[in-house]
């Protein structure tokens, strides 16, 4: 490495006499021969001296009184905080409890509303019809709709099988039910075409 570069790396320590002993002799010899490095030592020393002698600033006259006031305010706040710590939590429990309850209620309401929105709509004309033969809520369940020549047959999810139809007919024969009545069981609703509401 260039001896001047090497010297510059230790310039501060050389000036401050903190350079390791084994390097001190080597740098002294170099300095005796190198005018540029001598110049560096001189300039650097002057700058360090100038920085050291920069004028000192002093705190303003009211520094102490401002600090005391701030400490007094801080101590006051500390005491209030400590007092708050003894009763603050129990006092806050009902507030937190109420907030939690409100959040749970709101969440339940939203869930209910969401469920209702996802159910398929059945026109009111069907729900309120005199043939529907059951709980109106049941009619809101998904329906299969089959259209015959002159009637519309609404069948619950599980279509009636042939065996169940023959069972119904047998039941109708044993009672005074008409043929049409026997078809209007809770599982099955037959409407004349002219009563079907268009939607």
């Amino acid at each position, binding site marked *: 490495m260039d001896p001047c570069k090497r010297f*510059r790396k230790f310039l501060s320590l050389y000036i401050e006499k*903190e350079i390791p002993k084994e390097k001190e002799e080597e740098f002294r010899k170099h300095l005796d021969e190198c005018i540029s490095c001598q110049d560096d030592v001189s300039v650097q020393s002057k*700058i*360090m001296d100038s920085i*050291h002698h*920069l004028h000192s*600033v*002093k705190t303003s006259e009211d520094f102490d009184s401002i600090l005391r006031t701030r400490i007094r305010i801080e101590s006051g706040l500390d005491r209030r905080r400590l007092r708050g710590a003894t009763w603050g939590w129990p006092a806050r429990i009902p507030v937190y409890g109420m907030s939690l309850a409100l959040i749970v209620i709101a969440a339940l309401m939203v869930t209910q509303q969401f469920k209702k929105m996802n159910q398929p709509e059945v026109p009111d004309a069907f729900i309120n019809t005199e043939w529907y033969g059951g709980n109106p809520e049941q009619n809101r369940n998904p329906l299969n709709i089959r259209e015959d020549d002159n009637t519309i047959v609404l069948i619950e999810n599980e279509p009636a099988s042939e065996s169940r139809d023959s069972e119904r007919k047998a039941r109708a024969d044993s009672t005074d039910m008409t043929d049409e009545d026997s078809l209007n069981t809770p599982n099955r609703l037959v409407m004349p075409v002219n009563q079907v509401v268009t939607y």
Partner: protein
Amino acid sequence: MAAGERSKRPTDEDLIEQFQNGDLYAFDLIVKRYKNQLLNFVYRFLGNVEEAEDIVQETFLRVYRNRKAYQKVAKFSTWIYTIAGNLAKTELRKRKRRKFFSISDLGYDDKDYDIADDEFNPEKTVDGNIKEEIIHKEIQSLSPKFREVIILRDVQELSYEEISNIVDIPLGTVKSRVNRGRLKLQEKLKHLVKT
């Protein structure tokens, strides 16, 4: 001050211990001892005396608030300088953000530009005040990592070990950083000291 009197003078560590035990007078003595030292350190770091005074106030408030956190294993001076240095660095970051927002808020035509003073010639002989002002300005122009160690070493005259503890970097790094900082200043100020 006589040698006997000097030996009676409580150390910083004694004072903080007394303060930890509830002696507020000991805190007053700590303030008295350190307020101007810290003010000079922060002022040379930030370049503004009012801001520096606020930082020093905040430093003492932190000492007051966190007195129990101080443990005798470290020197008190190292602890208080670390607090002040950290607050000063935080202020510097805030200032940078403020500067960024205030410039970006301006329209293109509203921006002010610094125009180089062609009349200024550092080779001219300058009186003490101007010379000092130039040195102060050049210290400010160093990056914070160099500025901090230069101030601690050359203005505050702390040992390399103390600086290493305050800045929390290894001793060898402190020495090389001080040297590099001084070489940077030398480049900028050599015309001034050669005259």
